[in-house]
């Protein structure tokens, strides 16, 4: 009986040895949750949009989906606002086309720093006119803008959650209330997976050798907490005017960068 036992054991072990024993590497976690607060790296090629004759600054991006297309409004040459469309990262953007020009006396020949958001009738844009006028304008298609009117004083405005954010004298304000030191605020209000609102602000702050991009968050839109350190350090002088597109699995940060001796252009960074 022991002999039979040994024979069966050997037979079964040989059969078992024929079972699959292929090896595969262990995976890193896929699709890990992330908030968009850190982890950005600039995309290959650094910029997504440039113009050989004019500085492009203060981008404001509205995305049809987290992967694009991206509709980008920006200051063109310092005094007008133009628009370009980017199908998705890695493709060529359309040539800049005029979106908004100064036409009112109080604009004093200058419109700049657009911030565009979707609205019930199409789109709403707040922008800076003259030297410190904040104005609003609306559009049904994002191409033709009407109904210009002044709403405040300050610089680089942003509408989010029904509130106006802007900068003045090196401070970020929500309406008339100063929040913290910084410039060029871009605020996104969205629901977290646990169904509470989070206000996420990307703004300019002092960097290593130049202007960098920092992050602040808030649960109520009134009291913001900053990380205290830049989330994206400039490798070109001055990377300004951040505009973020956030989703549950990827964040894209658009910004203007001004290489020494070259025209300012629009760059992008992604996370994670």
């Amino acid at each position, binding site marked *: 009986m022991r002999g039979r036992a040994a024979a069966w054991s050997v037979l079964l072990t040989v059969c078992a040895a024929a079972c699959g024993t292929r090896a595969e590497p*262990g995976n890193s976690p896929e699709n*890990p949750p992330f908030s968009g607060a850190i982890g950005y790296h600039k995309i290959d090629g650094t910029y997504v949009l440039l113009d050989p004759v004019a500085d492009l600054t203060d981008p404001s991006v509205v995305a049809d989906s987290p992967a694009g297309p991206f509709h980008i409004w920006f200051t063109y040459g310092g005094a007008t606002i133009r628009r370009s469309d980017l199908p998705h990262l890695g493709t060529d953007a359309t040539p800049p086309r005029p979106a908004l020009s100064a036409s009112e006396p109080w604009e004093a020949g200058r419109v700049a720093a657009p911030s565009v958001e979707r609205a019930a009738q199409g789109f709403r844009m707040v922008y800076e006119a003259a030297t410190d006028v904040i104005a609003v304008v609306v559009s049904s298609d994002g191409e033709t803008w009407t109904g210009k009117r002044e709403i405040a004083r300050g610089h680089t405005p942003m509408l989010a959650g029904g509130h106006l954010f802007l900068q003045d004298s090196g401070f970020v304000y929500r309406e008339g209330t100063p929040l913290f030191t910084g410039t060029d605020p871009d605020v996104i209000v969205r629901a977290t*997976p646990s169904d509470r609102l989070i206000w996420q602000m990307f703004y300019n702050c002092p960097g290593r050798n130049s202007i960098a991009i920092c992050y602040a968050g808030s649960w109520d839109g009134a009291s913001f907490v900053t990380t205290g350190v830049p989330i994206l350090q400039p490798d070109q002088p001055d990377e300004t005017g951040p505009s973020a597109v956030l989703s549950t*699995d990827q964040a894209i940060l658009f910004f203007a960068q001004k290489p020494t001796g070259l025209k300012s252009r629009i760059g992008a960074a992604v996370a994670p």
Partner: protein
Amino acid sequence: MKRQCALLLLLAAAPAHANPLDAFGLGSRAAAMAGAATASPEGIAANYYNPGALAAASSMSFDIGYMLASPHMSWNGRDAGVDQTRGMFAGLNVPGRVGGLKLALGATIFLPDDRLTRVKSEPLSGPRFIYYDNRTQRLYMAANAAVGLGHGLYFGAGFVWMSSSHGNVQLNGLVGFPDPEQSDLRLAIDYQLETVRYPQMGLFWQHSDRLTFGLTYRHSFTLRLAQSLHIEGIVGPLSHPLIQNGKVDVSSQSTDLFQPAQLAAGMAFRVRPRWLVTADVVYERWSEFENPGAAIQLSADLKDFNRFVHIPNPPQPQAPYFHDVLALRSGVEYSVPRRGSRLEWQLRGGYGYEPSPVPDQFGETNFADGDKHTLGTGLGVVIRDVPLLEQPLALDAHLAWTIVPARLTRKALETDPVGDFEASGWVLATGITMRVSF
């Protein structure tokens, strides 16, 4: 390249915990009954569920089988990419008598298809499914001995083996500065795998033909990974060195594997001749769980340049504050009447509930987990009159479905890099087992 490999070895932190049998069971019969087998393990299953039951067996048996468990865990509704566990298991139970004393020896091994064990590096705050991530990616090897104490009482004990890792990387020589091409460094790697073992023991009591009890203790098991990097040498040209005998030391300590101490109490009651009902209560001491993130220490002696160098304190792993849990398991087995056939069929089912030991995550750590509900089902057949075999041949198959209901994590900080998330998932496990008795 060698240096890069050495650094990779050094910086690897390893979040791996417990073993695949804790998660998916051993043998199709026990897995079909949701793991409620402390008082009724059969064959090699006794090597895990209750070593004492080895001596209660009436004949020598050899088990072999294959198991596949496929986790489908997700956060925020998107697949987390948790790896499958699959592999072969086999074992032997050899009961006998010495001078009227019932004795038995048993051994079992679970051999994963993909790897013997896995060391995986994740950031300290990296989100991970702590229960299913690396926990199940390891070899399991156990050997036990059991003895009959009389009056239907049996005691068994044994060890489970693993290996521990200790590594030391040394770089000595000249660091070329400002011209790195002049560097002349010698690399030495000293890496050791040391055998470690932890005990387990069980009491098995056959109160009557209808009623058995079991009590099993599995000891806790923490496997640490210790690695260090030592760089020593001259910086600058040999003729005019900037730093003479400078030193940089980096050491990393992390938890490679963790298994909570477990105390399982079980009962099996044959309510009718063909109906067996089992129930287990398992206490799991998860409060001893340590953060698997690496604790890194840095020090440097750069002589005259020390005043220019400030080494910040590396972040240290926070205490995870897991809590102990009580898992409940129940199973049922029905033997279908043979009616003269060579085949005796058995139908099995079970339900298990294991609460999550993971506290709410609102700080730096992001351990994803949830309560686990397991539904098991299975089929067994005992084949009699098999050629060459004097004893029946048993074949078992099982299918177990574990559901991890959605659990929301709400972070305290508005600037948290991970943010709020929802973790959920399910695991489908299946397997077959064949037992040959002699």
